[in-house]
């Protein structure tokens, strides 16, 4: 074998703390290494060209690049190696940047470590074999989970691109948080005027299949061929028959049901359509409040319904959808404000959340857009907004900034002045975060034209005296304590990951961070991809995001899926398990172990029991290799031999013996 080694400087990123020339020189003495050099930027066009030329000139049969993490540039170099005429698996990478130069300052120690890492890469490469990918057909349908604005955008873009779309939404209507908003920053246009038409488009687009009040139960398969089990939860109304006439809502006697859409401001009926613009506009019975379910008698809706749509016997139903790609757009949820006992949250009725305030301002809300405070229905004059409630607060385990609350508060203060001209808004803030196009100008307008009073400091407590709420905070710029007598206190509650987000991530086999937000494949270069092929992200499920950013990501994810589906076939990853039939004794321990059911029980032509791997299903985890008592099933590119060669390279005494 003829190995070439290329050691990258990455400008000063590596060369700053690693002696790259020395590493290259040391590599010259490794077995089979016939060429070794250092290079300024290996991934740049001249860098790659240098590798290709060296392969040709020195008749190299394998290449080691010592540079950044393979998670960054392995595909880049594999392509380069392929262009040089080699099989792309005759390539190994030594990570001397993320694992060496960036985490240690001692140049000598770093250099030694880099040499070791190059050595194990070269040793493994000596045992690498060319692998050939197989092609397989893809199912050009896409599943989108979550029908907020991000999911809606992704669905429409995919459908426009000619794909069949399956949109699964947990609640009975699509629209997400945006459907609840009154007006949106920075243009202050009416939320439902912007979103409404898009929702209707979803309903009317023949390429989109909508499953609302549904959740993902199970995900099987792999990129190109996923098999999804969707649970359609029982609504107790036959949606084929329901016309959304709303007669049932008028007559239902259970009028004190919790109104989720209105965030508990006001109540609704047990059978309800959450809001007039709901898509689909269908009724659902809330069994927690329906008298038929809680007390065993009523059935008024069943009698009144002109289409006889009510079905108290309805059961959850599981359906199967086959798709080739998945976009998750499950959004976010809001911090439970009751954790702020010092603000009397959940205790004093006039201390409310920002989302409740949106509903109070909305023309379609329970007060038809008249701002009335919950306690006595009076119009508030002094309104205090408290920022960073459940954000940037380590004591409640939410150290991150929720990103959009500064902006929506600026908006809410401006709208408050529009609604109640003789009102005064106060905003207690720590920093104003408004880094978007026209955003800061918007905040300034609130201050300069609408007279919003910004007070720099947190609030320590809120307490009622008479029918007022005393807000006691600090003005750190003036260096003093400050008290405001408020009629209404609005808490800018932060965003947290959607309820059930970690469980869904586990079902999808994607990663999530400590707070339940989904992990992108690379924070800068792959912001909508995940580490699982064929699964993409859009919107606030990846981290708090406002509407423009969520929509942008929805479109980006759709573009990714369209690009994926632009080919008719995909190449399978050949790093799969392979059975050496001669050693296999047919014990089928591997079959039991494989989490993906990728191993078949077969008989060879003598009728002996053997195992066989279905390449397109095998995910390459290697569990079977460890299980097999005969070492008969080996994960290609990560065989026992290959891994042990790396171990040996690091252990001198073994080197001596072998």
């Amino acid at each position, binding site marked *: 074998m003829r190995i070439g080694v290329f050691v990258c400087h990455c400008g000063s990123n590596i060369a700053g703390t690693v002696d790259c020339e020395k590493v290259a020189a040391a590599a010259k003495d490794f077995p089979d290494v016939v060429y070794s050099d250092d290079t300024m930027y290996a991934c740049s066009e001249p860098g790659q060209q240098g590798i290709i030329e060296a392969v040709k000139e020195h008749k190299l049969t394998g290449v080691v690049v010592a540079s950044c*993490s*393979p*998670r*960054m540039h392995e595909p880049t170099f594999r392509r380069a190696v392929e262009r040089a005429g080699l099989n792309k698996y005759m390539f190994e990478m030594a*990570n001397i*940047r*993320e*694992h*060496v130069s*960036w*985490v*240690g*300052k*001692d140049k000598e*120690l*770093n250099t*030694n470590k880099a040499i*070791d*890492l190059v050595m*194990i890469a070269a040793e493994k490469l000596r045992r690498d074999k060319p692998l050939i990918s197989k092609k397989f057909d893809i199912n050009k349908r896409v599943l989108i989970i979550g029908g907020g604005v991000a999911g809606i955008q992704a669905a429409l873009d995919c459908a426009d691109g000619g794909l069949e779309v399956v949109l699964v939404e947990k609640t009975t209507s699509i629209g997400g948080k945006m459907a609840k908003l009154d007006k949106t920053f920075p243009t202050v246009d009416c939320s439902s005027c912007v979103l409404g038409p898009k929702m209707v488009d979803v309903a009317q687009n023949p390429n989109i299949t909508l499953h609302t009040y549904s959740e993902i139960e199970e995900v099987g398969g792999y990129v190109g061929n996923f098999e999804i089990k969707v649970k359609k939860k029982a609504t107790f109304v036959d949606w084929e028959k329901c016309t959304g006439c709303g007669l049932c809502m008028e007559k239902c006697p259970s009028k004190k049901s919790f109104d989720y859409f209105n965030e508990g401001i006001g109540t609704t009926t047990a059978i309800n359509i959450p809001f007039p613009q709901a898509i689909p506009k269908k009724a659902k019975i809330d069994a927690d409040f329906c008298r038929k379910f809680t007390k065993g008698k009523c059935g008024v809706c069943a009698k009144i319904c002109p289409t006889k749509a009510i079905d108290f016997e309805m059961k959850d139903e599981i359906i199967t959808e086959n798709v080739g790609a998945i976009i998750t757009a499950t959004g976010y949820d809001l911090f439970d404000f009751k954790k702020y006992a010092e603000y009397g949250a959940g205790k004093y009725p006039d201390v409310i959340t920002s989302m409740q305030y949106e509903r109070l301002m909305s023309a379609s809300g329970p007060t038809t857009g008249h701002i009335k405070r919950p306690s006595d229905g009076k119009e508030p004059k002094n309104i205090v907004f408290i920022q960073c409630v459940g954000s940037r607060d380590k004591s409640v385990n939410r150290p991150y900034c929720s990103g959009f609350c500064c902006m929506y508060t600026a908006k809410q203060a401006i709208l408050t002045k529009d609604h109640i001209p003789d009102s005064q808004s106060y905003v207690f803030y720590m920093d104003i975060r408004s880094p978007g196009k026209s955003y800061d100008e918007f905040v300034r307008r609130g201050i300069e034209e609408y007279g919003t009073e910004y007070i720099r400091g947190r609030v320590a407590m809120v307490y009622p005296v008479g029918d007022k709420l005393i807000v006691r905070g600090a003005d750190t710029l003036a260096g003093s304590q400050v008290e405001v007598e408020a009629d209404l206190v609005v808490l800018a509650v932060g965003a947290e990951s959607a309820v059930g987000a970690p469980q869904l*991530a*586990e079902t999808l*086999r994607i*990663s*999530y*961070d*400590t707070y339940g937000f989904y*992990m992108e494949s690379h924070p800068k270069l792959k912001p909508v991809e995940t*580490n*699982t092929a064929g699964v993409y992200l859009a919107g606030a499920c990846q981290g708090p995001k406002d509407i423009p950013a969520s929509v942008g990501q929805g479109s980006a994810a759709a573009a990714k899926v369209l690009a994926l589906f632009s080919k008719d076939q995909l190449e399978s990853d050949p*790093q799969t398990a392979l059975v050496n039939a001669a050693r296999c004794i047919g014990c089928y*321990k591997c079959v*039991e*172990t494989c*989490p*993906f059911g990728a191993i078949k029980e077969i008989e060879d032509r003598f009728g002996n029991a053997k195992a066989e791997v279905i390449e397109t299903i095998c*995910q*390459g*985890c*290697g*569990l079977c*290799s*460890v*299980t097999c*008592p005969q070492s008969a099933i080996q*994960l290609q590119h*990560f065989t*026992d031999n290959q*891994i*042990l060669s*790396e*171990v*040996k390279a*690091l*252990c*001198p*005494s*073994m*080197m001596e*013996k072998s």
Partner: protein
Amino acid sequence: MPVYDGKELRIIGFLCNWCSYAGADTAGVGRFQQPTDLRIIKVPCSGRIDPLFILKAFQGGADGVLVSGCHPRDCHYAEGNYYARRRLELLKRFLPVTGIDPDRFEYTWVSASEAPRWQHVVQTFTDRIHKLGPSPLLAAPLTDAEMAKLQSQVEAGSGCGCHK
């Protein structure tokens, strides 16, 4: 950040590609400084790690072996790390039989986002190995025959969940 200047020990890490290797990358990107002793071998999944690899490493004179994978429930391959956990727990209990101090071996879970945690793991494990000093086995490494015997013992372990 103490770096063990001039007297590095031989520590081998087996890291799964999806969580811990990515976590070590994230630590690099965040410049979370670490002692330099550790050398990382990438495997697709912690479930790919055969206890044999670890024994071989010790046999070859490694002073410490660290395994790190995805948190339970967070495995890219659904359940690989459950297998890993069973096997590695068993190995840990078997190590004394081999004369290897079980403190020289550790397995842990670090996700792709947990850069500070990775730094902490590397720091504390390296500290621990330095407290134990160089592996005494270097003087008299196990023979391959002894090795084979040991491996069969591990495999035959009563109620061994790892090779079910």
